[in-house]
């Protein structure tokens, strides 16, 4: 049976919500999640392949490391993720990766030529926290460097449909029965903030210190490529 998406009406703190409905879930579903994430999205692949040789980059919320191996040799990327289980999967694949929180990155200012954060910022549960995450991405990139961000869109063309007006939702992740891990369907809920058209750009403009270079919609996501001033 298909599990429904439900509105988020949880009366708990923002940090607790992310702990219980994002971090803990990814730690639980890491192997199954990883098995379903292998094909790089075209906009992101194009961005990575166009970077100047010798670029150093950070992938914040790198998941199973899907983008850490798109281009190797003449650029170098390091990943961070909040989920230890996903970082371990990256490590097994010989990717450079550490455990960290996107709101508070352990890197020095301007350390990187570029940073990407794919399908991550929608897991922060308030405008303030989403702005803080964007601020951190811009902080770790040098002036003139670029940042690429993808987030889930409220407006979906694909198989998912969301109820209009309900931007904060709990989305089920089902590990099906018969998989190597579970004998019956097991359902987890992840917290998402669904972005409306223009909302991601607006957050970057509110944070300031960057110039938007490209914005768009791809595969049910909104994305932004911006340059740090």
């Amino acid at each position: 049976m298909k599990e429904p998406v439900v509105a988020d009406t949880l009366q708990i703190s923002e940090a607790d919500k992310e702990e219980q409905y994002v971090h803990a879930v990814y730690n639980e579903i890491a192997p199954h999640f990883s098995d379903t994430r292998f094909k790089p999205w075209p906009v992101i692949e194009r961005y990575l392949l166009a970077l100047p040789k010798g670029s150093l980059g950070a992938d914040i919320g790198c998941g199973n490391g899907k983008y850490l191996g798109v281009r190797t040799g003449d650029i170098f990327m390091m990943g961070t993720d909040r989920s230890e289980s996903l970082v371990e999967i990256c490590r097994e694949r010989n990717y450079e990766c550490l455990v960290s929180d996107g709101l508070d990155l352990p890197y020095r200012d301007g350390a990187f030529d570029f940073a990407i954060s794919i399908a991550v910022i929608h897991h922060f549960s308030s405008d303030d926290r989403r702005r803080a995450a964007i601020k951190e991405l811009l902080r770790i990139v040098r002036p003139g460097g670029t940042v690429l961000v993808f987030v889930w869109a409220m407006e979906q063309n694909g198989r998912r449909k969301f109820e209009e007006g309900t931007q904060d939702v709990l989305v089920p992740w089902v590990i099906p029965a018969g998989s190597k891990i579970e004998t019956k369907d097991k359902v987890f809920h992840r917290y998402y903030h669904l972005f409306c058209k223009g909302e991601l750009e607006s957050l970057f403009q509110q944070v300031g210190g960057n110039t938007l270079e490209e914005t768009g919609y791809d595969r049910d996501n909104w994305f932004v490529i911006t340059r740090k001033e």
Partner: protein
Amino acid sequence: MRLLTHNMLKCHVKNCTDPDKQYPLRFKDVQIEQIEYEPNEEFLVRMLPRLDWTALVKTAKDLNIAIPDSVPEDPASDQEFLQKLHTIIMETHVTEGSMVCDGCSHEYKITKGIANMLLAEHEI
């Protein structure tokens, strides 16, 4: 964790802001492993402006790894230098141990090559 990565890390505990102490993090009780990696000279030359050389020298010396005190004038044509640089930043991995901040004494653990940079709630 490669030494290239370590060169980018600083202590990020709240109120730990002395730039001379929060960076670089000092390795403690570490195990080191050399893992071969395909060298790319152009990448290495272009990486030099991204590196904090003083921090790299301090860290390498702490780990008893030989390193030139300064970058040669024309690194692109200095094969021996680039080979050394490659070995240090790309092939030297810290697999176990910790990184300590000289400012606030926070210890970041490294287990199976993975650094855990998460902080406790009162440190954020």
